[in-house]
Structures are given as structure tokens and as C-alpha cells.
């Protein structure tokens, strides 16, 4: 546990050390001289000041005492602070949950899939997680190791884990022991398609209070600069690597054919050959094999039709750097065609209506009980599933050229502009249902919802075709498309069967109040009580999700297709920011310069004692000074000096 120094400039005092060594070295330059005997030269160990014998720099104890005292004084002047084993500030660790944090993990599951096993993508991911948990090279593994090390240095007062996924979410309760924290970190799966770290950091600041320390662990540098000596630290454990990944995948009906489109990106600074294999998931039968030659950061596109009745398909890339983005599964698009019946008098309006309906490719003509019934008469629906669309041509009418007021929250107005359109309609300002389009206070299009459990809609178009240009404008097919699409979306089933990681799909049920069970790729089941007929199902985990309800069963696939996350070339390793603000030093560190000063005092005391002992050694054994005598060689006399003896 290394101390920090509040006044590092004090280390300039270190120049005193070589000065001291220089003094001793200077004093140690000696010339050889043969003497009669060394018996009269006092033992150097008994001396402690000028004139003492110095056996170079290794022998004089005083030198080392002075050296140590100087060093300790300099250290004390630098004001060292030692980190306490337990901190006084809470810590929130923000964990980057994006899947790029697993880069470099082993692809056991991927290898299994290549071998032809009918493992689902979600199961593959689980196996990848297990294998990757022990892989030390992934940013996630490195981050966990670094967190453990940091906890070993100083355990915060309380620690919370905050997973930065599309939305930040807390991982477990507040924890006070390293064991709890490490155990909770195992639930950090890094399975999100996007990490909203800024929101997570903001939330961390809110849940912890002013004293909270925030640590972000990620695989890339912070987009904004991290101020030094603040409560935020950003640790990144990414390593720049090349990667090949699916960055887009879709499957849809195109002119009556089942068509898929895959985009593969070469996220590398070098040109690469990337192999793509397309198989059926049920039997792993190969449908397509292709090798794409891609320039650096280039994208290759594969578009093809599938035979009718093809079930889920799986595409794999010949790349192991990031398993999660190297394979995708595409479910067949959900077929929810609606039936329509036009019960209108022959005329121009009927013609343009039928033409617009046929152009949507989403509807087919039906009889009574169709999903959509267009009429120009006053009549009610014949079945519970029928939505009535009534075109009302009132006798007393005006041609309105706008401005038109549109309810933009209504599905029918999506993309509708009515710019330059003349809408002929009656003058009555009364509206039956909710107005969707109005010309001033004249409702032109209204929507009335009927029923609670399985609501139906009654739409009324007040339209005099002879006074209008709407049916001849580009807004007409838009309006009819919106209508058919809206009705189609209200049919039971999923709106989309192939999602990007993190997207939602809309599930529509036959009845409101049903309970559905969603089984994730990892096998986790989740029951959801649906209040209305529709519910958004999140695609939070890569793989095949299954939805079961009393009335329907649906399947959708979630794929990790995100170019930003798959691009590992911008990954970085480093640490930014420091918690060494005044508050941290005050709360989490212990000042030790007083201890150093005490040691210095002790050293000085020893120094003085040694000096005093040396001084005593200068005196004769009885403590009295020797009387001056004529024979004393300190005052040598010429010729002969004699000690006169008393006979």
C-alpha cells in the first residue's frame, strides 16, 4: 500500500542526501602514512564527530543515522498519507454491460455450432459466458481482477454495482464485504448491445450522495475528459483488435418471396477474407457459403431469397474474436395478412381505394367478417374482429384547403402531410369519436373505439371526392397503408420476429388480461401479466426467445448487430481520474508524518548519545584530565625531556 504525498515538491530536499554523501566522501580522501604503532589511535567506533575514523561510507553509523534522518525529514515534509484499509466513502462501480467487454473470450460454444450441433444461439452465449469467465484476457475478466485488487487495497464503506446497459440497473443490494461484491460481479454478463454509461454515472451520483465515489469500468476511454481529483475514476481494459462482425441482418417478405439481407463488416485496418456460412437451424443444412473480400472497415452485403417455407436460419462468420457478433439467427417474418372488403358504390373513390389497398401487399380481399370493411353507408360491423371504415359524402360540403390539424399520436397520421391537399367535407362541426384530422373546427377523419377486451375501431372519413384532391395526392396511399398496417399490427402475434439486441417487439394478444411466459435463450422464464392486448417484449439477450400464452405461441430472435460495439479497434487500456480530492484524503487516508518525525527524534537522540559516548572516551578512565607534564609530547621539547623521579 503505497502512500501518497501531498507536497511532492518537498522531495527537492533529496539533493541534501548526495550533499551529505559528498561531505563524507570529501572527508574520506586519505593519504597513506606509516606510523610506529596504531595503538595510540583511538578506536573509530568510540568517536562520533570530527576526526573520527571513517572506513569509507559503509562503516560510520553516524553517517547512516544522518542519512536516514534526512530522508525521513524529507518524507515528512512531503506529507505522506497512507490509505486506510477501510474507506469511509461509499463506492458505486459502474459496469459497462456492452458485449464488447467479452472480446477475446474463448468460443467454445461457437466451435460446437460449427461442428453442426443444433444449439441455439442463446445457449451458445451461455456457454461462452461460462468459458469466458475464466479467460483473463477479456476486458470483463481484467476489470473483475482489477476491482478485486482495488477492494484488497481499501474496502469502501459500502459498495453498489450499477450495470450500464441500455438503461442503468442496480446489481444486487448494497454490499460491505469483498466476498459479496465478487460474488455479485459474477452476475455481470456483458450482454447488452449498448452501454449508456453517462446515464449510469448520473444515477450513481444520485443514489450515493455527495460523498460517493464512482468507478467506471469499460473497454474504451471516456468520451469526455475525466477531471483529476474528483470523485470519478474511469478504468478501461480494452485492447485494440481486429474483428469481423454482422452489423445488420433482416428477413422480410419482398414481392412475395422470403428475402434476407446480411451485412458483414471488416472492422480491421487490413484487408480480410471473411467466410460466411448460412444454415438452417433445425438440421444445420447449409444454404449458402460465401467468402467476402473486404477492404479495411469495409462492409459486405449478402442479399438472397430463401425457398418458401424456410424456417429459422443461422449465419456464422469465420471469426472468433467476439463470438457474440459472429453469428446470427433470423426467424421467418411474422405473417399477419388482413382481409379487406370494399362495399362502396362504384366510382372514382372506390377505384382509388382498391388500388391503394392492393398496393400495400398486406391485404387480401375477403368476404363478410373481414378485418377491414370499407363502406359508404351507415352500417355496423358484422364480427368482433371487423373494423369499419365509412366514407361519408355529405351534400352540403365545402372544399377545405387547410390548414389541417392532425393527431400525430394516431397511427393513421404517420408520414401524412396533407400539404396542398383540398379536402371536401361537410360543414358540421360535430365529431363522432376522436378527431384524427381536422380543417379548423371541422372534423374530417374520426376514430371511435368500441369494446374493451378486444377493441374495434370505427373510422369515419368525411370526404366528398368531387370536391377533394386527397384521393389523387401522395397522401392517399400513405393513409391507406397506415390503416392497413395498423389493423395488421392489431392482429394477435409479434410485430417483428428479428430484433437487434436491446430492441423491443410488440406482442398483440387476442384478449386483454392474459398472462404470458417469456423464455429467454438462457432458459430463464418470466411471466408477464398483460393488462391490455399488447405488450412490449424486450430483446435483452442474444438468442431465441419463446413466448407462450393461452391463445398463442411466438418466437423471436435477438442478434448482436451493432457496428460501434463490434469495432474493437478503438478499445483502449488506461486509467483516468483520481479520487484524491480533499475529501478523500480527509476521510480515507491517515497522515503519517508525525510518525516519521518521531522516528527522526529517536534517531537524533541516538546520534546525540553516540556523540556523548565518544566525548566520554576522550577522557581518562578516572574521568580526570591528565596533568600537563614536561614529557607530554603535545609540547615537544628540543633535545631531551626527562621525567624526574623521586628516589
Amino acid at each position, binding site marked *: 500500500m503505497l502512500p501518497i504525498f501531498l507536497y511532492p515538491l518537498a522531495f527537492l530536499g533529496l539533493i541534501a542526501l548526495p550533499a551529505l554523501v559528498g561531505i563524507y566522501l570529501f*572527508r*574520506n*580522501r*586519505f*593519504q*597513506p*602514512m*606509516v*606510523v*610506529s*604503532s*596504531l*595503538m*595510540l*589511535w*583511538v578506536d*573509530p567506533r568510540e*568517536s562520533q*564527530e*570530527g*576526526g*573520527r*575514523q*571513517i*572506513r*569509507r561510507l559503509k562503516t560510520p553509523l553516524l553517517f547512516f543515522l544522518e542519512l536516514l534522518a534526512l530522508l525521513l525529514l524529507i518524507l515528512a515534509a512531503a506529507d505522506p498519507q497512507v490509505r486506510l484499509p477501510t474507506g469511509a466513502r461509499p463506492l458505486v462501480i459502474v459496469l459497462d454491460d456492452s458485449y464488447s467487454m467479452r472480446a477475446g473470450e474463448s468460443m467454445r460454444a461457437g466451435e460446437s455450432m460449427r461442428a453442426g450441433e443444433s444449439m441455439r444461439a442463446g445457449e451458445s452465449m451461455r456457454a461462452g459466458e461460462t468459458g469466458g469467465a475464466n479467460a483473463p484476457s477479456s476486458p470483463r475478466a481484467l476489470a473483475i481482477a482489477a476491482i478485486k485488487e482495488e477492494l484488497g487495497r481499501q474496502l469502501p464503506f459500502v459498495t453498489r454495482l450499477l450495470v450500464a446497459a441500455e438503461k442503468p440497473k442496480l446489481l444486487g443490494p448494497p454490499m460491505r464485504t469483498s466476498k459479496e461484491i465478487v460474488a455479485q460481479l459474477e452476475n455481470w454478463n456483458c450482454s447488452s448491445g449498448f452501454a449508456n454509461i453517462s446515464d449510469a454515472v448520473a444515477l450513481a451520483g444520485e443514489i450515493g450522495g455527495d460523498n460517493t465515489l464512482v468507478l467506471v469500468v469499460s473497454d474504451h476511454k471516456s468520451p469526455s475528459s475525466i477531471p483529476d481529483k474528483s470523485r470519478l475514476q474511469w478504468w478501461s481494459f480494452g485492447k485494440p483488435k481486429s474483428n469481423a462482425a454482422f452489423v445488420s441482418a433482416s428477413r422480410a417478405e419482398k414481392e412475395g418471396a422470403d428475402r434476407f439481407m446480411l451485412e458483414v463488416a471488416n472492422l480491421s485496418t487490413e484487408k480480410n477474407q471473411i467466410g460466411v456460412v448460412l444454415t438452417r437451424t433445425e438440421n444445420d443444412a447449409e444454404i449458402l457459403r460465401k467468402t467476402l473480400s473486404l477492404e479495411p472497415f469495409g462492409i459486405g452485403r449478402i442479399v438472397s431469397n430463401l425457398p418458401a417455407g424456410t424456417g429459422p436460419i443461422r449465419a456464422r462468420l469465420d471469426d472468433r474474436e467476439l463470438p457474440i457478433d459472429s453469428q446470427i439467427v433470423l426467424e421467418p417474418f411474422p405473417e399477419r395478412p388482413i382481409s379487406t372488403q370494399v362495399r362502396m358504390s362504384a366510382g372514382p373513390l372506390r377505384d382509388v381505394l382498391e388500388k391503394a389497398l392492393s398496393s400495400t401487399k398486406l391485404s387480401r380481399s375477403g368476404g363478410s367478417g373481414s378485418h377491414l370493411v370499407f363502406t359508404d353507408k351507415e352500417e355496423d360491423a358484422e364480427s368482433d374482429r371487423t373494423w369499419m371504415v365509412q366514407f361519408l359524402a355529405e351534400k352540403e360540403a365545402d372544399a377545405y384547403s387547410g390548414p389541417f390539424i392532425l393527431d400525430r399520436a394516431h397511427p393513421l397520421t404517420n408520414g401524412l402531410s396533407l400539404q396542398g391537399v383540398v379536402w371536401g367535407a361537410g360543414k358540421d362541426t360535430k365529431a363522432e369519436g376522436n378527431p384524427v384530422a381536422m380543417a379548423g373546427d371541422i372534423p374530417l377523419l374520426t376514430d371511435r373505439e368500441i369494446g374493451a377486451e378486444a377493441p374495434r375501431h370505427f373510422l369515419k372519413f368525411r370526404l366528398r371526392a368531387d370536391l377533394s384532391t386527397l384521393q389523387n395526392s401522395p397522401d392517399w396511399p400513405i393513409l391507406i397503408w397506415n390503416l392497413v398496417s395498423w389493423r395488421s399490427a392489431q392482429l394477435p402475434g409479434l410485430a417483428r420476429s428479428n430484433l437487434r439486441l436491446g430492441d423491443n417487439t410488440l406482442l398483440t394478444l387476442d384478449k386483454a388480461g392474459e398472462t404470458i411466459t417469456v423464455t429467454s435463450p438462457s432458459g430463464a422464464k418470466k411471466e408477464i401479466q398483460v393488462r391490455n392486448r399488447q405488450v412490449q417484449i424486450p430483446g435483452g439477450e442474444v438468442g431465441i426467445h419463446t413466448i407462450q400464452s393461452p391463445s398463442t405461441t411466438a418466437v423471436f430472435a435477438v442478434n448482436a448487430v451493432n457496428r460501434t460495439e463490434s469495432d474493437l479497434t478503438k478499445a483502449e487500456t488506461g486509467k483516468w481520474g483520481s479520487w484524491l480530492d480533499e475529501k478523500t484524503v480527509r476521510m480515507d487516508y491517515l497522515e503519517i508524518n508525525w510518525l516519521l518525525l518521531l522516528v527522526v527524534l529517536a534517531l537524533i537522540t541516538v546520534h546525540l548519545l553516540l556523540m556523548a559516548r565518544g566525548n566520554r572516551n*576522550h577522557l*581518562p578512565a578516572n574521568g580526570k584530565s*591528565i596533568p600537563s*607534564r614536561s*614529557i*607530554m*609530547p*603535545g609540547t*615537544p*621539547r*628540543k*633535545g*631531551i*625531556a*626527562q*621525567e*624526574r*623521579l*623521586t*628516589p
Partner: protein
Amino acid sequence: MSSPLQPYFEQGYLAGQRFVLGIPRNAAMGMTGATLSSLAGSSLEFRDHRQYEPGDDLRHIDWQAYARTDSLIVKIYREEITPHLDLIIDGSQSMAVKGTQKEGAAAALLALFAAAGARAGYSQAGWRLSDRCRKIPGGNRPPSEWEALEFTHKGGPDGPLSAFKPRGTRILIGDLLWETEPLTVLRGLAERSALCLVVQLLSRADVTPPLGKALRLIDSETGAIREIQIDALAAKRYLDALARHQQAWSDACRQCGAQFLVIIAEDLLEEWNLDELVVAGILRTRSGGAVGAPTGNH
């Protein structure tokens, strides 16, 4: 081939020609010889009367004086002696440190005492002190003719010095820079001697450590090295140690009845000022005139 010490022997011999070695007051009694002792003895030359003291020879009682005075009076006769000089030279390597004059001064002192002794009728023996005292072959001749006068020993004597002729004059010349206890050496040396003189012969460098120098001091005998910055305090400490050492020798000499002298080699050879030896009664001038440096070659 002449010895490198020959000039020093000559200087000492010249200096010694002007002196005679003094006769100790307690020189050997009852010994017949050509020289009259200063003490009472058994010669035929009458010197004085005194009161009888227990232990006096009854044959020397003056019965006539007893008859006249009723008190026992003894006659005191001057003793005739043959004085003997033992010259003991320290043979340690420290006596021949390069850059000092200790070796030459030692040779000169030997020649001085030998010449003065010869002039006083002393017989003479030469001894070399190493781990023990060894008689020098040809030691009864002038020191310049001594064999094996060399300074090669490392250390001091291991024990007491002995085997000297009783009642003789013994002169030890050395730097005395030994760890050996002075009393251990001196007891044997001074025992049964008529006069014992210990001359500590030091060089000027031994008594004046160079101030302000960083020196690597090398022991001339053991080769041990000690590096030291010699400042005033270190010099004082050295001089204090030297003074203590000399004090120890001085005290030991006092206890044993010996005399202790310190001679600085370089000073002796430059000035030949021997006043202190004369004042102490160790040397006597034949004419009683002033003493000075030798002026001519032998």
C-alpha cells in the same frame, strides 16, 4: 661495506668522548675493581665514621672511638668496584620507520653510552630486545661493531627481562610502543641493578600528528590500516593516549626505581643537547664544562 648507521655511531661516539658515565650511588658493593664507588665498601681507603646500625659489619667497628665515646662507631671505607653497563636496544620494526630518525638516533645513543661508559671504566654488554632479551654477539665491543643489530621484530617483549649482571647499570633504548604491561618489562630490568635508565626514543612524527589531513595510517609492524581524518580533536585524542602511555611507563619506572627519559630522535641528532642527562647525573663531564654538539669526525 660500511653500515648505513655508521655516521650515527660516529656522532654518538664523538659525543660520548666528552662524558663519562656516572657511577650510581648504589653501585655493586663488595666487589673489587679499579673504580671507586660513591658508596661505602670494603676497600682500604677510609672515607668517614658514622653511628653503628644493626646489620653493619662488626669488623668495621672503631673500638677506639667506642672507648672514647661509649657509642658504637663504625668506620666507612670507600668501595672499589668494577662497574658494568648493559645496553638494551629495542629491536622492533617501529624503531626503523622510514622518514624518521629513530634508527639513527638509537645507534647514536648506543655509541654515546658505550663511549661514556668506556671512559668511566665500565664493562659492557649489548642486548637486543625482541620477544625476549637476547645478548648481542660482540656486545662488549663498541656498538658499531655489534653483529645482528637489526630492527625487525614485530611487537614487544612477551615477559620480564632478566639475565643481566647484578648491580650493573642498565639502559633500555626503545620507543616503548608496546601493548606489554610496563611493569612486566621493568621488574626484571631494574631488579638488582645499580642504575636503570629507560629511554623512550620517539620520532617527531610520533609526537606531532599532522593536523587537518585525511590519512591512511599503516602500522609499521603489523601492517594494519586505519583511515582517519586528523583534526584538532583527533590529534588531541592521540596525544592524550600517548601521554597516558608515557604516564604508565613513568609510573612503572618510579615503582621499580628506574629513571625514565623521553628523547625526540630528530632533535637529538640536530642539536645533541644532553643537558638533561647531565643534570640527571647519568653523564658527567670530565672537565665540568658545557656540553654541546659533536664538532668533528672520529
